């Protein structure tokens, strides 16, 4: 009997040990800012008094930056924390593919961060869902001067006259070129700029020359075959033709300028399949440009930082060529938002907006990653001027064609546009067919 009692005790002990082990583990949470226990910890921190006699504020900040972006953001956060002993910003890097879902659910659970990042294209959706708080009051209190921002970018963060976000950059879609390869093909002038006629035929001629003059191993134009980058190029060309988004101004219906959309799609499809200047289905398009086996490449400005840190890569950056009537490109911008929290803490909010404004003011650091700062005054800073390449594409910020403020922006892009444009790039649909199916799908997304 005694023996069995002993075993019973052991069993119960074991059971509770495992339970507590599994339970205790949740403390692994602390230091992140996601859990309620941690909120408590943060509040404790909040109450502690620093040597200056002021209350110290700890802010959790969720970001979606990786690679060069991630490193530069961390550097900015570290610099800010150093400059502001009373404010400590803690960065949690989330994977961008999951970022918005996680942000929405966490804010819904009351576990959201104090500060978050949003693309302007996602902002309407986040406002609509009640994730983002209004900034006007706290911005005044912290002394944010809205007039110092690029008004074009700022406009996209204002809904019904209310500020919801602090823009920190614009990141347009631009073109990069490999100077060595262009030179080899005789397409580089003395200033190190491409010899390129800014027209539909001119760009094709440029690419076909590259194809003829360069070794077979070299891809004239490194571009992904699916999703983002070719879509961005299509958006740029469609906008160059005068196309104005794919939704109507009242945001309720699909509205595509079919002729222009088809013309732009046809042009890109021909680059893939008629002129064969893009390697089809190339999973390594990024690496190809990086390792010098692609002559040109188009993607967002964030690649600048990556190319710069690549040894032996002599490259240049420029706006997307004016293939059609007017200059235009795809772009988006990162903004800082203050998510809605369970318990609004004015001190935290004020600290958070101070941080956001500081990020915008110190855009020269963020520009290291390639982005164009949101405050024009930053362009005048020597630190910014010392950065190469950026001045070559700063002008692009004003030709970016942003998407209209629809709450379904990303759904339209991911679920309707990528889907059918990918088929066009794969040569499985004619541009006309693809665009008409795309319009129907956009309509479907909008009416859901």
């Amino acid at each position, binding site marked *: *009997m005694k023996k*069995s009692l002993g*075993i*019973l005790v052991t*069993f119960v002990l074991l*059971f509770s040990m*495992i*339970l507590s*082990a*599994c*339970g*205790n*583990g*949740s403390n*692994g*949470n602390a*230091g*992140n800012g*996601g*859990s*309620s226990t941690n909120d408590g910890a943060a509040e404790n921190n909040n109450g502690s008094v620093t040597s200056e006699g002021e209350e110290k504020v700890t802010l959790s900040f969720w970001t979606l930056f*990786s*690679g060069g972006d991630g490193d530069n953001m961390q550097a900015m956060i570290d610099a800010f924390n150093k400059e502001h002993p009373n404010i400590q910003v803690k960065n*949690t*890097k*989330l*994977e*961008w*593919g*999951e970022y918005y879902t*996680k942000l929405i*659910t*966490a804010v*819904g*659970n009351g*576990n959201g961060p104090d500060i978050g990042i949003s693309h302007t294209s996602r902002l309407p959706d986040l406002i609509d869902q009640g994730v983002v708080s209004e900034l006007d009051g706290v911005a005044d209190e912290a002394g944010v001067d809205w007039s110092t921002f690029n008004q074009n970018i700022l406009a996209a963060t204002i809904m019904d006259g209310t500020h919801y976000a602090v823009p920190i950059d614009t990141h347009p879609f631009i073109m990069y070129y490999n100077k060595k390869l262009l030179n080899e093909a005789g397409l580089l002038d003395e200033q190190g700029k491409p010899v390129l006629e800014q027209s539909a035929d001119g760009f094709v001629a440029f690419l076909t020359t590259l194809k003829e003059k360069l070794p077979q191993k070299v891809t004239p134009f490194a571009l992904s075959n699916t999703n983002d980058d070719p879509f961005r190029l299509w958006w740029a060309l469609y906008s160059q033709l005068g196309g104005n988004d794919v939704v109507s101004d009242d945001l309720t219906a699909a509205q595509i300028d079919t002729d222009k959309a088809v013309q732009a799609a046809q042009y890109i499809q021909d680059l893939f399949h008629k002129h064969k200047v893009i390697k089809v289905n190339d*999973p*390594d398009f*990024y*690496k190809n440009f*990086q*390792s010098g086996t692609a002559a040109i490449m188009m993607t967002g400005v964030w690649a600048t930082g990556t190319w710069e840190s690549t040894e032996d890569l002599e490259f240049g950056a420029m706006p997307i060529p004016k293939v059609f009537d007017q200059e235009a490109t795809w772009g988006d911008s990162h903004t800082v938002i203050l998510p809605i929290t369970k318990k609004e803490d004015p001190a935290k909010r004020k600290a958070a907006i101070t941080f956001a404004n500081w990020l915008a003011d110190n855009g020269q650091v963020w520009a290291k990653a390639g982005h164009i700062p949101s405050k024009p005054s930053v362009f005048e800073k020597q630190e910014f001027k010392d950065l190469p390449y950026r001045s070559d594409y700063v002008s692009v910020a004003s030709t970016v064609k942003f998407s209209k403020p629809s709450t379904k922006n990303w759904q339209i892009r991911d679920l309707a546009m990528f889907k059918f444009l990918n088929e066009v790039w794969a040569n499985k649909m004619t541009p006309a067919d693809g665009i008409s199916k795309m319009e129907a799908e956009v309509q479907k997304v909008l009416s859901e």
Partner: protein
Amino acid sequence: MKWFYRIFSIFMALLFAFPLVWMLVVSVKKEGMKITSVVDWFTPPYSLAVYQEIITETKLIQWSWNSFFIAVCVTLLTLMIAAMAGFVMSKVPFRYRTFMFFFILAGLLIPGEATLIPLYQVAKDMGILNSYMGLVFPVLASPFAIIVLKSFFDGIPNDLLESVQMDGGGVWRIFVNIMLPLTRPALVSIAILTFIGSWNNFLWPFLSVTDDNLFTLPMGIPTLMNQYTEDYVKPMVINTVASLPIMVLFLIFERQIIKGVSLSGIKG
């Protein structure tokens, strides 16, 4: 004919081993080398630098530990819960036993995937999202394990128990001293299946956790891969680091694992 069998056998073995060998070989390649042919992977230069980078700069080791720790917690708790339930279902004649049996049996038909969306809502209401508890508790109820264990308990003759009872042993003592040892093979078998199931659970951690300190391998690995798709070396290092510990465990316990798996088919 015999030679054909032999060659075919060896071919199949190579086919199965090759992707893993490739993974290991690529993982020790020097990063950024130009690969133009298969041969390039299998020739130097080799380097372990990326291993160091991945181990020190990412949370992969932490995630491996999380996966392992959670799988162990889930396995032990599931076994305990299911063994206790299976035992009374088989050996204790209580009221409503038949009803209880069907109630448990019904659970076999409910796939975890189908209740995932409401489960998320329930876990959210309970406030256990983003915690080890939230990762462990929702997967503990295993009607399958109970049914299997019950049929094992059924195979143990009742007179054996009655003789113990005559000695004055309580139910708990019978359970621990007699029943558990006798069903050891079944317990091992269920432990292996539960462990592997938890080890590979992707959807639930993916939905319920935002804190990267709590990630498990299936959800953590994709976040790393997204950053490194430009080169095969890093992905393969990630794959290898995530796989080596479990492979070592497998080699140590191979006999027991194989035995456990083969047993699971008999009752499953």
